[in-house]
């Protein structure tokens, strides 16, 4: 593989983190296949990535939550002539309160954040296994590490996804392909627009993007972004229940 012309698929490129990551790859001269739902937004992003130096940008509007993953992925891989990195970045936060009262909305959220993501991951895993190379990178969340009252439905999806990606990483390890789950902490993006963004815990999407690019090259199957979240989550994970229950998080 020519390092400068990596073949990369990005699902959900319109997310702030994915777009920031795509820019780094574009500047490195990657060949990109980018996917988002909205054709207009996708074209805007494609023009930017091309200007920044991507050797080739193919942009196709697909609703990832409803796609026939194996079919779509095969077509994408054929277009690129192989696959070096697949970044799965689409997802939705949902509103915990509303979700608890609306089973229909919960089903949609699980379909988007978990069920469809599992299908994409398995399809990607099959491609990587066949090639015996390449990396699957999936954006999870620190919310998946321990169920908390503020967002446990979203957290359940991301936690499940983390288990899946760990398993795929385990499966691919002997043949030289890789899988990585990225667990961002508080990131200043439109997804978190309603939160007060103060203090040192908040990071910009660029920071996560840098870690994703690095994780796609080398490293272990679980990456906290920024890295200090590993320690925060370690503490939260091991808090005794009587203390944990007192926290409004």
């Amino acid at each position, binding site marked *: 593989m020519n390092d400068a012309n990596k073949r990369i698929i990005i699902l959900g490129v*319109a997310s*702030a983190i994915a777009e920031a990551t795509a820019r780094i790859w574009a500047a490195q001269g990657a060949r990109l296949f980018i996917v988002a739902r*909205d054709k*207009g*937004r996708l074209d*805007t*992003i494609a*023009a*930017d990535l091309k*200007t*920044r130096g991507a050797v080739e940008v193919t942009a196709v509007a697909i609703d990832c939550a409803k796609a026939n993953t194996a079919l779509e992925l095969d077509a994408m891989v054929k277009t690129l002539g192989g696959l070096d990195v697949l970044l799965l970045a689409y997802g939705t936060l949902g509103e915990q309160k509303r979700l608890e009262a609306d089973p229909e909305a919960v089903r949609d959220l699980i379909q988007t954040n978990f069920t469809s993501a599992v299908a994409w991951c398995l399809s990607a895993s099959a491609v990587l296994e066949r090639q015996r190379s390449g990396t699957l990178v999936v954006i999870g969340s620190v919310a998946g590490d321990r169920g908390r009252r503020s967002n446990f439905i979203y957290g359940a999806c991301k936690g499940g996804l983390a288990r899946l990606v760990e398993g795929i990483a385990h499966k691919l390890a002997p043949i030289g392909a890789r899988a990585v789950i990225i667990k961002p902490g508080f990131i200043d993006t*439109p997804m978190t*627009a*309603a939160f*007060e*963004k*103060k203090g040192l815990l908040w990071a910009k999407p660029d920071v996560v993007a840098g870690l994703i690019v690095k994780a796609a090259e080398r490293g272990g199957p679980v990456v906290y972004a920024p890295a200090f979240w590993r320690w925060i989550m370690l503490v939260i994970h091991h808090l005794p229940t009587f203390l944990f229950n007192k926290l409004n998080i």
Partner: protein
Amino acid sequence: MASPSFVTRDDVLSWGRVHRRPQQVAAPRFCDEFAALLDNRGASSSRLAIGMRRSYGDSCLNSDGAMIDMSGLDRFIAFDEATGTLRAEAGVPLSQILAFAVPRGWFLPTTPGTRFVSLGGAIANDVHGKNHHQAGSFGCHVKSFDLLRSDASSCVVTKENEAGLFAATIGGLGLTGVIEWAEIRLEKIGSAYLDVETIPYVGLDEFWAITEESVEKFEHTVSWIDCSARGAKFGRGIFSRANWREDGVFTPHNDDTWKNIPFDAPALLLNQYSVASFNEVYFRANKAKAGISHQHYAAFFYPLDAILNWNRLYGQRGMFQYQCVIPPDNARAAIAALLNEITRSGQASFLAVLKTFGDRQSPGLLSFPRPGATLALDFPNRGSETLRLLSRLDAIVGHAGGALYPAKDGRLSAEMFRRSFPRWCEFLEYKDPGMNSDFWRRVAE
């Protein structure tokens, strides 16, 4: 009440950090979101598109309305390697344009003293740089832009097809609508480095002499002047003049800096004595390295960008910046008078910049740059004491037929604004009734 996409924030301040009122802020990432954000049917609240809030006072605030933070619209649209024409969304910071353009052998046609301003902000304030005497203002290099008005109409504006709207929007403080994207002409460079000549001077007469001798031969000129030095040292400063090198080294700057001022400094940090000592050290250090040196563009154009949030050195109460321009005929007398007044007050801080503008006409109805000399400096906010000093400076500037710079201002009077910008009535014709700012309410309503 603004639409639900707007969030009330009390941490949104301008660079001077004096004006502190909650702001309604929305942060779109795509142009398709504007229609909903500009729609204020059923509510009379105004809008203002903002960039990186490097304006010092209240021209980038809209406390009585809502603001649209453009930083999420930071994409390139097209770049023509042959002509250097760049089209990009308005929220793209100049720092990103440089990171993109420098390795390709291009540079901004002119740049303000910080690279952390947005493309839209550079146009809306018609910013200027050290090469004004040759290149004119930023607006001189704008080919076209897309302007979205609050009535949901939008059009691509050029000097040719919409001369009035073009002139109103350049330097128009964001009040003619939302600039969605703009197309500018970059300048070809032969290196990322400059040959910089540093010349210490004592007294304004020397400053004027060096200026006269430099403007033809040097693309960039600027000087730092010590506003705390009295007696024999009065009017001393450091003149720098520079031209691009031609060595073909195109290393871009690095935005990753660990230098940050993470909290507000105590109010007493900057006082008459600490400033005077700093200035003494600075002057001597520069005097020692007088002569010619190679400097990277980041060191030459953006020395303060090396420390993020340097504005926090001024403490909780923030600071005022004062920047005026004095027409050529009155420049010598008025600059001397200003310097006298400032030195006497003992309130000046260390960042005083003196430079001359060239004759190239700025394209905007409300453009600040015009022929003459411009003086810019910071004052820690000490309440009415500071405001009284600034009013005394206004009197000198007004008497000399000069003008003040809205991007730097947070207190000038309506009368002073109207004297500074005699074409402001013409501007009214093009102002978008749905856009407004705290500054505009103060000076024009």
